[in-house]
């Protein structure tokens, strides 16, 4: 079974134009984001919507989102090798390529959040080993190197099929725990903080792993469907069906965990824990994240993917994947900013804002955050850059396949 069906026939002219336009548009968007970052560098982070109470915003929840996206591919590829799930194998290469791209862009996403980006090298020069952020930097580097190595083994010529299979299985043995650790440690950045009752739950790590699998699978499904539509990827029905089942399971497990957390907080009724949840539940001022997470990103995709009449249409699968990504993004927002909106010490006049606008108070009691155009531009630029990397990565894989002539069956002989 080949990962990507080589096609020697030239793509249709129209598709070629669409493909080129897509790349040009993404590159332009990425450039706009880069420009916005340069602007932010000259002004400071004052051009963002963050202030002292909500001191982490779009950059950080997008970072957490990208980290999550990187899960799907590698976990899928590793699981395919380790547990011999044949139906997922055709996606191994795309999956690992996507994982590498996502984790790379996730690491880049941290840079615009830093007040002093030029000092980022200090993370390696003076690491404080007690800081979960340092652990995260390490696991991100390890994960990226690992995904790249995996990709090299998968694509290098001249490795005998049996040997390649053995190496891949061995790598999967490392890859699966590495992926789990990546999401666990990213969760711990938040989950270990006693200052934020909303974050400080042992559930944080498992929820991160599940939501990462969910969003990662949705992304791989989306890439695969796009590749089938525009790039002539051979996508067997059983693979689509395996993806569908994986997404359904992950949605259910994720919502189950988040729901269990809600009930624990509601029943316990401890004010400092209720504080965040009350904002997020229907009726609260941040309730839109709840609707996006539970209905748009939860219930809708579940219906689209399970109703027999709907699920056969490929468009529905793509739509469901997009909705899932929206839902998981909403979950990241809920998670990161839910923890920051209501500080533990919430007494008048509140916290110092850290910046001054004439006619406005220098203090803020309850956090308030709305991203500015700079944050939107930089984040959109990063997303475009990620899409660009994945598109180019896919083309590279396809050109390799075409160059090989007959594709070797990877991992066969297991």
């Amino acid at each position: 079974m080949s990962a990507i069906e080589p096609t020697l026939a030239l793509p249709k002219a129209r598709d070629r134009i669409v493909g080129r336009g897509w790349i040009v548009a993404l590159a332009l968007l990425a450039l706009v984001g880069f420009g916005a970052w340069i602007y932010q560098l000259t002004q400071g982070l004052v051009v963002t919507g963050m202030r002292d109470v909500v001191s982490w915003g779009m950059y950080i929840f997008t970072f957490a989102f990208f980290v999550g996206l990187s899960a799907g591919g590698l976990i899928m590829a590793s699981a395919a090798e380790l547990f011999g799930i044949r139906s997922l194998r055709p996606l191994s290469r795309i999956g690992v390529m996507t994982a590498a791209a996502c984790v790379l862009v996730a690491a880049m996403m941290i840079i615009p959040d830093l007040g002093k980006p030029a000092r980022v090298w200090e993370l390696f020069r003076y690491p404080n080993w007690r800081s979960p952020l340092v652990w995260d930097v390490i696991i991100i580097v390890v994960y990226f190197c690992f995904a790249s190595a995996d990709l090299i083994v998968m694509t290098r010529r001249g490795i005998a099929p049996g040997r390649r299979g053995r190496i891949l299985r061995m790598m999967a043995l490392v890859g699966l725990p590495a992926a789990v650790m990546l999401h666990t440690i990213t969760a711990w950045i938040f989950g270990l903080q006693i200052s934020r009752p909303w974050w400080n739950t042992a559930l944080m790590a498992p929820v991160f792993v599940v939501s990462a699998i969910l969003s990662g699978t949705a992304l791989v499904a989306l890439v695969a469907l796009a590749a089938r539509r525009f790039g002539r990827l051979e996508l067997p029905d059983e693979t689509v069906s395996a993806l569908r089942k994986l997404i359904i399971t992950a949605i259910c497990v994720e919502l189950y965990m988040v729901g269990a957390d809600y009930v624990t907080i509601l029943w316990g009724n401890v004010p400092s824990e209720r504080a965040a949840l009350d904002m997020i539940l229907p009726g609260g001022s941040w309730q839109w994240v709840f609707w996006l997470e539970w209905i748009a990103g939860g219930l809708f995709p579940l219906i689209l993917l399970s109703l027999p009449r709907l699920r056969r249409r490929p468009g529905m699968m793509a739509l469901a994947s997009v909705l899932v990504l929206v839902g998981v993004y909403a979950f990241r927002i809920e998670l990161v900013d839910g923890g920051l909106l209501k500080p533990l010490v919430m007494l008048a006049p509140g916290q110092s804002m850290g910046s001054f606008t004439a006619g406005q108070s220098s203090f803020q009691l309850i956090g308030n955050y709305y991203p500015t155009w700079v944050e939107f531009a930089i984040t959109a630029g990063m997303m475009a850059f990620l899409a660009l990397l994945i598109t180019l990565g896919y083309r590279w894989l396809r050109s390799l396949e075409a160059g090989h002539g007959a594709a070797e069956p990877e991992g066969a002989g297991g």
Partner: protein
Amino acid sequence: MATEQKREPHWAMVIDQERCVGCWTCAVGCKEINNEPLGVWWNRILTASPNEITGEAAAPSPAAPASDNIDVPHGVFPALEMDYIPVACQHCNDAPCLRVCPVGATFRRDDGTVLIDYERCIGCRYCIAACPYGVRVFGWGQEKRDPDFTVGYGRDYRTDGGRLVFTPDRPTGVVEKCTWCVERVDEGQQPFCVDVCPTGARVFGDAGDSGSEVAGLIEQGGATRLLPELGTEPRVFYLPAKPERSLS
């Protein structure tokens, strides 16, 4: 600084809520000596009900603040209560900000003072997320002052092997907070907020010296700390106001 033989002091601060009248002199004094720009407060006077977030028995946090405004009593008439909690960095013994700082820009001196190295901080703001007391302030943009000139100590101050812990104009993109006025304390002076408090509600000294005033106040009993259940062990102690002082 201290000679080799001399024991390192263990600085501590005691704030007497019975004496505090909520006048904000210490907060404004702090702004002056440290040249804090507009919108930046290292020290604030919170309006609360008595013992709201201090004391072992107290609820860890209010469900909702009584008012967005200061000087508004808490409760429902006629059962009104009001108290002031001056809050700056608590110089925690087990400081979450110090644990999370990825590059060790936040550090503790042997005398217990928690400081930030402005030349090391990468501006990740993890410490702001980790501090339970909301006392850290980020340099979001170009500092603004009105009137626009530098006041206060006015020089750079370096400690612990040359780490820059005070500079009159903080660089954009780093985190700042109360330094316990190291530059003054190291020269035998008191922190500025202690000196300017008109009611003498603030006492600073060596808690390790049993003869000192702070040690006595902590010893005499009744001293509490903010959010003690978190185990951060602040080195700022509060002497709660006596109950009869409530307005009811």
